[in-house]
């Protein structure tokens, strides 16, 4: 059927109803009114189409023209993504004007890129073959991969710089450019999913030691306001072992986005020799930007991640916050008059969440490389209520849950990851991985630690009733152990020069050392040393060591622990 033009009939914020649009399909993009606002078709009934508009619709009125484009909501994926910021529809923000009005012009990018072909005329290529690399794209090697469906012999290679949309090579008689257009909501194809577990080192001890995440898995961080979701996610963006990070600010603060950009630009990336910002793509749809673009931003983020995954990279996608995305879904569903399920959320909430988290995975790409997309989403439960629909729905689709606890945060214990409710479904497999790599004690340290923390909590509530002094000495040492584990190991100040991130070796030394000190204290009280004497021993040196030695200084930690142990021996 011919693509047609229609006319606006009803406008209710981002919900627009249009008459006379024929030949359009669900999820097609159309343009509304004189400002040609982008909108997506979300409902069709006869000649009436329901649209979700991606910009402010002020001034749009019945009778205004509507034009179908025949395209899906899509983005241009190519060199120039890394180190830059984009809005929810993947339009560049870096370089856009100060005030984001709907009529702003978005250029296709006329920069010409020098590229190095990795294939020559006559070579056979299949989807996933690396056709070229683009050195100017930054320290992360930008590989131009043959898109799905491109198969045949290379017949021509351009010999000068090209813009991202100009032909760079030809495969049989098909032009291939440096950039590829891809629909945001459609997962990119890969060869197969891998199931063996390889941990992603995050640099945050509480995660790496207690609640690890595997590459290609999904994790969620639920927590009330101010409990530290954003800071934890930013730490992961900075310090995790990923090749590429996609940071999606979804309905959150503008200042945070500005800060991420500024800070990442300051930190060198030891892996590539560039700066951290050069391995990062930022998608910013802040809370005051149009609500429906917020809904799209999550899909944009994961599509960018899959694009880099297909180059063979381990990619981490961070979404802060998925609750704002779910709210955008709810807002729109309510306007269309859909029957709400829980708390006004549409009945499709669970399937929408699944569609997002299921795009995580460790795979063999079409080109035969092992690569991954790890998805980490913040969840902002209203009133900190962990039984609300987005939190409970999310838990079904993730492997690791990092639950942030308001009491810990109020006591300034950061990261406020609770040992009471957080989980890591892959912990056993991660333990096996560590064992295979020379740290067989990883698993037992974890088990001892979680047991001690739980026991210390139980005893602390008991002590509230009967008083600490009524507890037997070995239980008082457990209380001390709980404090030491929290203060000396689990706390990690994001601002600290030495301790913002922590290597596996330092983490192991710290936890091992503290557990040794706890054992020593238990031996002392067993030998009759008064619990009070042990409690009042100055262990500040042990608590401070994480801050006082460098992020990889396992030696320094071990030495300090040995000194503390020696001092304890003197008490005997």
């Amino acid at each position: 059927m011919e693509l047609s033009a229609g006319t606006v009939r009803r406008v209710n914020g981002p919900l627009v109803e249009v008459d006379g649009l024929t030949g359009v399909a669900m999820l097609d993009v159309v343009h509304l009114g004189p400002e040609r606002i982008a909108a997506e078709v979300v409902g069709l009934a006869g000649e009436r189409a329901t649209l979700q508009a991606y910009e402010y619709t002020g001034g749009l009125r019945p009778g205004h023209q509507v034009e179908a484009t025949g395209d899906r909501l899509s983005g241009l994926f190519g060199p120039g993504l890394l180190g830059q910021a984009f809005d929810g529809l993947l339009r560049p923000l870096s370089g856009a004007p100060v005030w984001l009005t709907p009529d702003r012009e978005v250029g296709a990018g006329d920069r010409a890129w020098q590229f190095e072909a990795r294939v020559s005329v006559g070579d056979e290529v299949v989807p996933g073959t690396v056709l070229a690399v683009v050195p100017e794209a930054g320290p992360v090697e930008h590989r131009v991969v043959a898109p799905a469906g491109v198969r045949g012999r290379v017949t021509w290679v351009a010999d000068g710089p090209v813009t991202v949309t100009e032909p760079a090579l030809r495969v049989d008689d098909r032009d291939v450019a440096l950039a590829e257009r891809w629909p945001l909501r459609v997962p990119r194809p890969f060869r197969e999913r891998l199931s063996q577990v390889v941990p992603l080192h995050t640099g945050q001890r509480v995660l790496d030691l207690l609640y690890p995440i595997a590459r290609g898995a999904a994790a969620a961080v639920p927590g009330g306001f101010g409990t530290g979701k954003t800071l934890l996610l930013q730490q992961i963006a900075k310090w995790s072992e990923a090749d590429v990070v996609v940071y999606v600010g979804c309905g959150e603060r503008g200042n945070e986005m500005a800060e991420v950009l500024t800070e990442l630009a300051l930190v060198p990336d030891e892996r590539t020799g560039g700066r951290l910002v050069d391995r990062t793509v930022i998608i910013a749809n802040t809370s005051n930007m149009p609500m429906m673009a917020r809904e799209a931003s999550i899909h944009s983020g994961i599509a960018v991640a899959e694009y880099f995954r297909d180059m063979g990279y381990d990619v981490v996608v961070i979404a802060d916050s998925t609750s704002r995305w779910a709210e955008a879904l709810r807002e729109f569903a309510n306007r269309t008059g859909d029957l709400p399920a829980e708390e006004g959320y549409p009945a499709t909430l669970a399937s929408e969440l699944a569609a997002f988290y299921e795009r995580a995975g460790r795979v063999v790409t079409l080109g035969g490389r092992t690569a991954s997309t790890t998805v980490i989403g913040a969840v902002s439960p209203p009133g900190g209520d962990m039984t609300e629909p987005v939190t409970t729905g999310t838990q079904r689709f993730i492997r690791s849950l990092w639950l942030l606890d308001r009491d810990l945060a109020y006591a300034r214990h950061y990261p406020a990851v609770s040992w009471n409710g957080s989980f890591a479904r892959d912990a056993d497999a991660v333990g096996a991985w560590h064992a295979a790599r020379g740290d067989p004690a990883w698993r037992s340290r974890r088990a001892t630690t979680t047991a001690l923390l739980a026991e210390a909590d139980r005893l602390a509530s008991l002590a509230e009733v009967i008083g600490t002094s009524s507890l037997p000495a070995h239980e008082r040492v457990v209380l001390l152990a709980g404090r030491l584990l929290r203060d000396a190991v689990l706390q990690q100040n994001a601002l600290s020069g030495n301790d913002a991130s922590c290597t596996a070796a330092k983490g192991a030394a710290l936890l091992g050392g503290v557990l040794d000190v706890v054992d020593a204290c238990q031996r002392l009280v067993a030998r009759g040393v008064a619990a009070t004497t042990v409690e009042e021993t100055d262990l500040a040196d042990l608590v401070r060591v994480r801050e006082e030695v460098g992020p990889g200084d396992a030696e320094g930690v071990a030495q300090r622990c040995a000194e503390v142990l020696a001092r304890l021996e003197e008490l005997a």
Partner: protein
Amino acid sequence: MTAQTARIGFGDVRELRGPLLVVGDVDGVGWDEFATIDLPDGSVRHGLVLEVDGDLAVLQVLEGTDAISPGGVWVRFSGRPLQVRVGPDWYGRVCNGRGEPLDGGPPIAGEPRPVAGWPLNPTRREPPREAVLTGVSVLDTLTTLVRGQKLPIFSVPGMPHLTLATQIAARATTAGEGFRVVFAGMGLTHADIAYVRDRLEERSAAGELVLLLNAADDPVIERVLTPRIALTVAEHLAFERGDDVLVVMSDMTSYAEAVREVAAARREIPARRGYPGYLYSDLAGLYERCGRIQGRPGSVTVVPVLTMPAGDITHPVPDLTGYITEGQVVLAPEVAARGVYPPVDVLSSLSRLMRSGAGPGRTRDDHLPVAAQVLAALARARQAAELGELVGVSALSETDRAYLAFRETVERDLFAQGTDEGRELADSLDRAWAALDVLPRRELTMLPAAMVAEHLGSP
């Protein structure tokens, strides 16, 4: 509010429901247009288009629909969204919640700007960096406000939040310079309004104050507009004139109730406690208008004040506010009961931007570690106090008793302060050190050993 050149008018009022007016047989009316409504008695009201459907337009009437009957009403649409005139003429003026003068002066002149504003490109923001010193010890030491931040005060009715807000507005300086103040009052009692005007007298006399006042007995729906006008005026003064502007908005709970009233009249599906699901985005559209812009002087710093119904911090208004703002200052009746003004519950309070506004090169080298240590010690003191209540203070360990003594000292010597008193930051930090001296040295684990030795001497 600007005088609008009226286009064509329509008189076919189909329905009146709560604050809503539905007019039929309209043509060429766009979404979010501003309209003037002429009543048969010659009076005028104002409305905003919430929906257009074919030839129907649904308006919210800012002054409410009281006493309107469908006949003889004439609705004139302006062809554009609601605008307000911005400019330095605002300084020294007192207006109602719709921006119309209450002080007998002429209407405010200047360029018209849409009150909804436009989103600020996040990549053009300058991350806030400079500390704002308020002279209030507990804030400056533990929850430092930063130029361009949004930091709300969470309170409960009957607490001195307006005293604190006006104390900040009157005394705050950044890099030694004072702020221009835009105060938006929503649903305030006349007594509160008089109090605010009195406390800000000096700023007003210096022509550095803008007052927008919607009183408790003024039209409720008008409150939807008041903060938007305040912020539109402030944005212009800050980003186009280069002023440092502090916007105080009180009481945001009254504002949210007005939003809820409109939503209920539209029979929208509520999210929590009857508030619409878009309340988060609505509030964010206000609070996010603070900040700084790269390469421009000037800043908008926002201090919203809200009362938590029944003191419940999980109520949607404080909860959603907390999810948007960069921290919160919580006032607690328990602290007030101990005779401390300002009664800040420091453990639930937080300035998220403090880490970039305080510390070496910004305030004092010891500022951040001292604040961290004071807070950690107060967290421990709270546990000790709870334990002490159950088992008796004498059953507590010596260490726990030291923590209780610390809390008493810090509340008395650092937190408590006069309602007009201003303290230098150096003085405040020294008081914090003096309080920390009450604790055994081995407890000061958040402070580098060398720093402890420098400030407290060797043990």
